[in-house]
């Protein structure tokens, strides 16, 4: 077999296994399909944040705000809260657009900031959005405050509702499984968009800003515009992810959009390898699944060993998370699967030449 054949066979096997995955997972329990769906949402979020952090080199610690915007747009336009029930294919673009607008809103005052200072302002922005959602229940009840919004419509396509199970060719296709296929489709789209953006005139301009902003300005790149584009593009992916999150969960509240979520998404990007699309996908999948696996293995393990739970799974999760970050900084500072440029940046032997 030559290279192309091997490549094609590999892709075919990958696609086939991705298509069959939910059936295998539901054998282990529908919960695992849900976990996979959430993992895909985190891949969306990481890829969106990667545009800002990985491509353009702008450290953003408030990314969850755009996730929140997308989620609330969906919740408000498809729930009994306002009595609106728009279809998801109308809401998702609105959510993405509004999130992009928020991206520009965040980007505009922070254009001259870099590094730590940008991180502080974006962190504040994330908190502002969350606190707004928490308090926008008075004097007009828009977000229903900390109680959140319930009974959000599931995605509906024609007669098929994603909120319930259906029979297809004698197979039971559950709601989460349908979401899985929808998310998989969106994921392919998001990855394709990212790959094309990276290898384009705009993508090169982002990279130039990351490398040397002053040189980029001197050769005529309108850094204001290009940075805002990065914020807006990144935010729009967050908006889409937020919308899908609303639909899948059926309930959202400001509690889902706290700072630790932003930190988690950033960790996925950094762990996977800033700037490398496949690395970021791997990072997001890894950090989404490992904690869940822990949850399902640590308790039975402790029960069988000690007959009681000695260490809470949550504690173990944080412990391992910290350990992973330390080990990564020591052995793979550019991420598990780094962009070749980043890797060289971190490789001292090359840098000192």
């Amino acid at each position, binding site marked *: 077999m030559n290279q192309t054949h091997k490549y094609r066979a590999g892709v075919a096997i990958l696609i086939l296994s991705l298509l069959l995955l939910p059936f295998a997972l539901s054998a282990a329990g529908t919960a695992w399909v849900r976990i996979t769906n959430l993992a895909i949402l985190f891949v969306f979020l990481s890829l969106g944040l990667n545009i800002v952090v990985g491509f353009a080199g702008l450290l953003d610690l408030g990314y969850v705000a755009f996730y929140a915007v997308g989620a609330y747009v969906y919740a408000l336009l498809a729930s009994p809260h306002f009595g609106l029930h728009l279809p998801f294919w109308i809401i998702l673009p609105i959510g993405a657009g509004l999130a992009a607008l928020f991206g520009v809103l965040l980007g505009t005052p922070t254009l001259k900031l870099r590094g730590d200072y940008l991180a502080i302002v974006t962190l504040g922005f994330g908190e502002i959005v969350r606190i707004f959602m928490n308090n926008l229940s008075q004097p007009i009840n828009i977000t229903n405050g900390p109680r959140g919004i319930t009974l959000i419509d599931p995605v509906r396509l024609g007669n098929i509702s994603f909120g319930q199970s259906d029979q297809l060719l004698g197979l039971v296709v559950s709601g989460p499984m349908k979401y899985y296929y929808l998310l998989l489709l969106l994921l392919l789209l998001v990855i394709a968009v990212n790959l094309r953006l990276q290898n*384009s*005139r*705009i993508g090169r301009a982002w990279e130039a800003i990351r490398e040397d902003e002053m040189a980029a300005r001197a050769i*005529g790149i309108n850094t204001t515009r290009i940075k805002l584009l990065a914020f807006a593009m990144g935010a729009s992916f967050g908006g889409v992810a937020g919308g899908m999150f609303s639909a899948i969960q059926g309930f959202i509240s400001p509690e889902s959009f706290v700072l630790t979520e932003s930190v988690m998404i950033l960790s996925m990007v950094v762990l996977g390898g800033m700037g490398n699309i496949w690395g970021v996908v791997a990072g997001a999948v890894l950090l989404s699944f490992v904690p869940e696996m822990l949850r399902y293995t640590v308790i039975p393990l402790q029960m069988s060993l000690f007959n009681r739970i000695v260490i809470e799974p949550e504690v173990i999760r944080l412990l391992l998370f910290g350990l992973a970050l330390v080990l990564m900084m020591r052995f793979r500072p550019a991420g598990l699967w780094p962009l070749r440029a980043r890797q060289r940046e971190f490789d001292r032997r090359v840098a000192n030449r």
Partner: protein
Amino acid sequence: MNQLLEASSISKHFGGVRALHEVSLTIRQGEIYGLIGPNGAGKTTFFNVLTGLCPASSGAFRFAGRPLDVNAPHTVAQAGIARTFQNIRLFTNMTALENVMVGCHLRTHAGIIGAVLRGTATRAEENAIQQRAVELLRYVGIADRANDLARNLPYGDQRRLEIARALATEPRLLALDEPAAGMNATETAALRILIEGLRADGLTVMLIEHDVKLVMGLCDRVAVLDYGEKIAEDVPENVQRNAKVIEAYLGA
């Protein structure tokens, strides 16, 4: 001869420090114009003001017969002025080819939607950018290093790459900030041939340089700055004999 750039009474103050004081000069179409002066005389500040990297305290520029807006670097580049830096500023983790391709940004158009859809027009533009970048690398003589990272190029080639990147913006005036700094005699001689070639191809060049032999041999006219003021502007032979210039360089 046609005037390309006209600077009138450019001043730049940093707090109490007078980096530039009422500097006026004109550069003619097609000449190589040298800007010299002792360290700290304000040469690089003049470049920074001209290219919009730091705003002037007062004064105005005219370029190609029109007022030049120096408030944003990209409008200066748009008008047709490109520059290099004294301490080379390449995109070090990008390849030589990519560096020049970024330089083509200014004269190309594909946006987000073009990039995502990648239609015929976008693909044609991408091909044109790549072709142009290869041509420019060949022009400055480093086409064989196209796929090397900018940081791995030898020093002289990095200087050349920076010039190629500046040329990608299709300038009418190329401002070179100490292009021969740190170069050995062979590299300097090659640089001189390159700059003369640029002029032969119709470009106007403005040059900050410490290498007196290079400046005197290459430039059509030379201006001398001292403590932020222009003390002389003439053909090289006359500048060399100018009493004020000799005083500025040797001390009173």
